């Protein structure tokens, strides 16, 4: 018994040391507006829950010790099985706590909804930088429609400028996640998801797919370079010099399964390529999903009822 206690203390201390070693804990050391708000929510909810959990944990140990069978001095009430007063409190305390947390959750869901544009007070009124992300097997394609360039496994964005990432996937469901900047969001085939992020500091942040998508999944990582405006422009100029062009044929070639892809740049991105990926009509001769839906809706009531398909792809004006 004593040994086990000692061993458990040792490991407890080791775990605590790891926790407090001051190393980089991405989710708790955010650099963007959204991720900072999320961190605040996490910390507040954790502390609120501790208010209930710690007393319960203490009570288990104290009750076990105090009412142990060998302690004949402790009061013993074998037939006591209910008390309206106690039961009132054991319902009302969790209900109060959940009410507080529910208000908190609803507030933050409204405030941080990924598809909503960030408030001007946070992001200023600079035009939003748009990135169209496609999760391929097994790499990320990032299209910069405003600049006509695209990259594989690399994002550059100016610090302090709001970024809209709309995302989809070619095959399996993936998820876009830059832990220091904001939420996980699914990149799904035939769907279009929108995420608004802003980075407040210069730096290089790790990003990756957060939904298992097959053999090359572990390697689906990319770096998010949060840089000054000058560096961003220089990077765009560099990408524009690439001789690789991203037309539909080049996209289909890129979409073939591959692992460990290095960073690559494309210039001359074909217009509406992203729309075609979402609507699954990159291959020439195929009809886009949106078109199919319209045909189905025109044909019958059933088709009309089922045609709620609106990927809502944001095109660049």
């Amino acid at each position: 018994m004593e040994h086990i206690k000692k061993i458990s203390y040792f490991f407890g201390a080791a775990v605590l040391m790891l926790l407090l070693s001051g190393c980089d804990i991405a989710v708790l050391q955010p650099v963007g507006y959204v991720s900072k708000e999320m961190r605040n929510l996490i910390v507040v909810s954790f502390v609120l829950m501790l208010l209930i959990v710690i007393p319960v944990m203490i009570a288990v140990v104290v009750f076990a010790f105090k009412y142990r069978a060998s302690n004949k001095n402790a009061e013993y009430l074998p037939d006591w099985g209910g008390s309206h007063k106690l039961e009132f409190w054991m319902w009302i305390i969790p209900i109060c706590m959940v009410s507080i947390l529910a208000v908190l959750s609803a507030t933050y869901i409204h405030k941080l909804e990924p598809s909503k544009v960030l408030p001007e007070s946070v992001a200023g009124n600079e035009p939003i930088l748009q990135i169209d992300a496609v999760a391929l097997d097994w790499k990320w394609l990032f299209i910069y429609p405003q600049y006509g360039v695209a990259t594989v496994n690399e994002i550059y964005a100016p610090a302090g400028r709001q970024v809209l990432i709309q995302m989809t996937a070619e095959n399996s469901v993936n998820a876009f996640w830059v832990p220091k900047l904001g939420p996980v969001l699914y990149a799904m085939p035939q769907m279009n998801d929108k995420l608004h992020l802003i980075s407040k500091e210069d730096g290089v942040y790790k990003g990756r797919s957060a939904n298992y998508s097959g053999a090359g999944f572990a390697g689906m990582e990319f770096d998010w370079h949060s840089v000054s405006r000058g560096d961003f422009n220089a990077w765009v100029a560099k990408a524009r010099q690439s001789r690789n062009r991203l037309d539909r044929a080049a996209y289909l070639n890129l979409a073939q399964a591959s692992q460990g892809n290095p960073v690559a740049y494309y210039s001359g991105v074909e217009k509406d390529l992203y729309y075609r990926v979402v609507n699954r009509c990159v291959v020439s001769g195929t009809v886009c999903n949106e078109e199919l839906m319209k045909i189905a809706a025109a044909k019958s009531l059933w088709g009309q009822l089922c045609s709620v398909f609106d990927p809502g792809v944001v095109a660049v004006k």
Partner: protein
Amino acid sequence: MGDPTAAPFEALGQVPIVLYTCLAIVVIAVLVVAGILLLGWWGSLWRNWITSVDHKRLGIMYVVLAVVMLVRGFADAIMMRTHQAMALGEGSGYLPPEHYDQIFTAHGVIMIFFMATPLLFGLFNFVIPLQIGARDVAFPFLNNLSFWLTFAGAILINISLGVGNFGRVGWLAYPPLSGLSGSPDTGVDYYIWSLQLSGVATTMGAINFLVTIFKMRAPGMTLMKMPIFCWSAVVSNALILMIYPVLMAAYIFLTLDRYLGFHFFTNDGAGNPMVWINYVWVFGHPEVYVLVLPAFGILSEVVPVFSSKRLFGYSAMIWALLVILVLSFLVWVHHFFTMGAGIAVNTFFSIMTMIISVPTGVKIFNWLFTMYKGRIRFEPPMLWCMGMIFTFVGGGLTGVMLSLASADWAFHNSAFLVAHFHHTIIGGVVFSYLAGFVFWFPKAFGFKLNRTLGIASFWCWFVGFYVAFFPLYVVGLKGATRRMQHFMDPAWQIYYIVMVVGVFIIALGILSLVLQLILAIIHGCKLKGNLPVGKADPWGDGRSLEWSVSSPPPPYNFATVPQVSTTDAYWQMKVEGKPIKTSGFQPVHMPSNTAAGFWIGIFALILGFALVWHIWWLVMLCFIGAVASFICYSFFGDHDGYYIPAAKVQEHEEAFARIEAKGRKA
């Protein structure tokens, strides 16, 4: 797309780990079978176990299956953790992605469907009829059939280790990855057919127990006088009845996609993979409650016995169960808050999810106040229960954090999430089931498991759990995703090494458990399998009816059906000092054994195998075989049963009364 059935023996030829594991399993299987034949145990095994329709024996067989599958699933866990501790930065570990991805899928599928579910049904089977004062379940043959179909499913999915491969899709197999385009081999087919088998078995089991509980309670036992474990079984089985058909329908759609070129979940032909995610989670979330509610039920039985005190808040417990029954259907979207469903949907499901923590919290308080002013004895079952309460509230804490949708966006699919659900499943479900296992073991066999090893097992699991899973919370917050075959950041290695240490501490806990069982088997062998009639209440202070009969109970459970007037029926009997009846017995009618369940199970196993490998003539043959066995049983089987003569009942009850009298004098 290629032929899924090409290269069935690829893994055996190319992966040495698979080859040696399969060889070892074959050798052990051959030794076991040879041993049984040489010792001449086959006849007894066939008569007393394989063809038995006795709920107690079927319960024990379920538990044996679960323990074997626990070891199998845990071997996967060891491989994952040791691999991950090596596969960081420059290191590449020892499992390539195509193998690693099979292992995490196998771990999830086996632990949920072939470890936890059989263990649950083992406990249901053994305990429920005894607790409600019944002589068997409502449909004894169906019960036997359920077991053999579960068994067939477990064998089928384990065949994939050697022949073909396991799915590489995660335990809920999201398409299009699980479709023919993402998984062009037999892994997903094994998954579909073995889960269909176990799904049919589980659904039949649920019907069986619902009918048993509603129709076969002892006279006087109204629903509000029924033990909480039975109540939790009612809610759990009602959930099973509602959710398993959803899962099985989803599997049928996926089967049509894979076998007949349909387009339910494909990216082309107007299919929509996202619909699947809703189907599986409409199943998947209530499934969590299917597993955890009986765990709550077990605590509600064990804590009062070892606190020598009435359960606190009996009716609050029942209301809490019923609230959870309803709410568990209104929360499934919290498994994909990150789908971008919008403000209204996320807010609704976030708040519903939190509300579930209210009835769950009430239960925790109830157990605490059951301990309060009791006389607590630290026997192994009680240790498991206190460990459960202590650990489960922690899992509840992170669970509530995950229910805040905006916070979930930082945790989703990360190691933090994995740590959370192991926190609740190990801390909540496994600890409780093991509490139930050691608690009811002496009822099943008449003697207790070794106490020292039991305490060692608890402390190893308890400490090992914290060492293995708290670093996982930390790496999750650092940005580690789940299901990773390789990590870029070598700085995380130290955490993964600590986790490996934790896993091996848990392994010691499992070893202690297995040693306890081996000691028990040796004890049984010394007695040549003839377990003497033991006293009714080996723990002392038993409260419900299962403790009123001898341990092990006679085949007919109750010589005379008891009259119940309070919630703690056996406690009441002891208070009233009722003497054990020793004369005036009637002959007891018993159902006959049948081999039909076994043969249908065998046919179903081969049927599943033939479906996986597209051997159509064998599919036809086995399908006809299974249906024919069923029809033959219906028309020509022995449905008359037999009678245990009154003299034999009297003989047992007299022996029991002598043991009890001796116990009382001492």
